[in-house]
C-alpha cells in the first residue's frame, strides 16, 4: 500500500479520525504520519482520488520495476516519468503534456466525457497565431472537400488563401510568449 499523502513511500500507519460524524481512514508512511498532528483531508481537491482511477486504467504502466527495462516516457523538463504521473495523478510541468502526449487523449477522454480539445478562452497573447492556425486548418478541410467534389477552381483559391495565411504566420507575428 502506498502512502496517501506523499504517494511515494509505502504506508505503515493507518489513521482513523472522526470527522463530522463519520470515520475517515488514511494510510500514511512513517514520515508523513509523524508530520501530521491533525489530518486535514482535502476533499475539495480530489473527490475522485484521481491517482487511483489512473492506476486502474493503466495497470501495466504501474509495474515500473521491470527486469527487462522498458523505455518509460520521461519529461525532459521536470523529470517526471509517466509512471510517476500515474501514481500521483498530477503533472510536474507544462512540458509533461508533450512528453506524455501519446497516452493523454485516452486519459482526457475518460475524465472529460470523450473530449480531448480545448474549446474555451484563449489568452490574448496566443490569440493571433492560434486563430490563424485554426483558420488554416479549416481552409485545408474545405480544400479536401473541394478536391473530392472535383471543384478544382475553388480548391486552388483555398490553396492560395492558405499560402497567404501561412506566410503571415512565418512572417513572425509576435506571439507574445
Amino acid at each position, binding site marked *: 500500500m502506498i502512502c496517501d499523502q506523499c504517494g511515494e513511500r509505502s504506508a505503515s500507519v493507518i489513521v482513523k479520525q472522526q470527522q463530522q460524524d463519520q470515520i475517515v481512514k488514511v494510510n500514511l508512511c512513517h514520515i508523513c504520519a509523524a508530520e501530521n498532528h491533525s489530518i486535514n483531508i482535502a476533499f475539495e481537491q480530489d473527490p475522485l482520488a484521481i491517482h487511483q482511477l489512473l492506476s486502474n486504467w493503466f495497470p501495466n504502466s504501474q509495474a515500473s520495476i521491470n527486469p527487462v527495462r522498458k523505455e518509460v516516457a520521461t519529461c525532459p523538463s521536470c523529470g517526471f516519468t509517466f509512471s510517476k504521473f500515474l501514481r500521483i495523478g*498530477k503533472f510536474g510541468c507544462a512540458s509533461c503534456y508533450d512528453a506524455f502526449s501519446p497516452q493523454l487523449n485516452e486519459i482526457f477522454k475518460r475524465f472529460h466525457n470523450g473530449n480531448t*480539445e*480545448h474549446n474555451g478562452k484563449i489568452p490574448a*497573447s496566443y490569440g493571433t497565431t492560434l486563430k490563424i492556425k485554426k483558420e488554416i486548418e479549416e481552409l485545408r478541410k474545405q480544400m479536401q472537400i473541394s478536391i473530392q467534389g472535383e471543384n478544382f477552381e475553388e480548391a486552388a483559391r483555398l490553396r492560395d488563401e492558405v499560402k497567404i495565411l501561412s506566410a503571415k504566420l512565418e512572417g513572425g507575428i509576435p506571439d*507574445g510568449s
Partner: protein
Amino acid sequence: MAVERFLQPRASSWMTNDGKNVDIAMSTRIRLARNLNNFKFPYAFTEDEALKVDKEISSVLLDKGNELDYTFSHISIEELAELQKEILVEKHLISPYLINSHHSGSVLLSDNEELSIMVNEEDHLRIQSLQSGFQLQQAYKIANELDSLLEKNLSYAFHEKHGYLTSCPTNVGTGMRASVMLHLPALTMSHQIQRIIPAISRLGMVVRGIYGEGSEALGNVYQISNQLTLGKSEYEILQDLENMTEQIIQQERRAREAIALNSPVVIEDRIYRSLGVLTHSRLLTTEEAATCLSDVRLGIDLKMIQDVDMSILNELMIFMQPAFLQQYADKPLQPKERDFARAKLFRERLNRNGINSEGEDLA
C-alpha cells in the same frame, strides 16, 4: 498585520442575503486554475521557484489591481498562526490544501472578500470569485476580468490543443470549476436527492454535501459543480450548470410545497423545536447546530418564522466552526468546551435579535 481585517467575525458580502433564488441558492463560486509558463508546477518545483512565482504573481496584483478597482492584501501563509489559517479556511477564503502545502504559498484577498487568489496551491494560481445567491455569470465575469488582467502581465502555460495546463488532468482546458451552494432540506427529507445525485453525475456535473462526504449532507447544504473542463467553452459549461441548478431549485420548491401541504403541523413542530434548541440549549454540537439551522432557514422560507434575520443564520454557519469559536472565546477549546461556546454564541446572536428568550440565561 494585513490579515487582521479578514479574521473578524463579520460576514463577507457574498455571505449576505442578496441575489436571485437566495432562499435556496446560498452562494456561487468560480475557480480558475492557471500556471505560469516558465516554472515547474507545484508538484515538481523547488522552494526557490515557489518564491519567484509568488513574487511575480503578487507584484502584478498589487501593482495593477487598481486597474479593476481592487485593492489586494498579500498574506503569506507561513506567517500566519495556526488558528488564523483555520479561520481563513472556515471562511472559504483559502483551501485546506494551501495551508498543508510544503512550499511557500500565499493568498491575495480583495477588500470585499469576493476575490481570493491563492498562489502555489495545487497550481501556481487559483483565482476564486465568490458571490451571494445564484450568480454564475456575475461571478465568472469578475474572475474572467481578473484573469485577463493577469494574462497581460504574466505568461500562462497554455497549449493549443489542451488549453490551460494544470497540475491535475481533471482541470485541464478551461481550468474552470463553477459551483453553487444549495440548501435542499425538502429534497433531502423526501429522499429525492438520492435519485438526483447519480442522474446529474452522468451529465458532467457533480452534487455533493459541502461539509462531509456522506449521502446525508450536514445541514442539508449541497454543492453542485461542473466536473468537465475540457471540450466545452466557459459559456457552455456555465449554461449547463445554470440550467441544472435551476431545475434542482424548482424541484426543491415543489418538494417544499408538498411538505407544507401534506404535513403542516409536523413541519411546523420540527421548525420550532429547532429554533428552541438554537435559542436555549447549553451544549450544541456542530451536527445538531447544522441540522437546526437548516430547519430554521426552512421556517423563514416558509414564512413560519418572521422574526429571525436570514443573514444572521448565514453568519452563524461560518462562525460556529471550531477556529472561529476559539477566536470568539479568545482561548483554545476542547471539543466539549466548543459545544458550550457554540451554544452560547447561538443564544447571544439569536436572542439579541428580537426572539423572546424565556427563562433566565445562566451562562
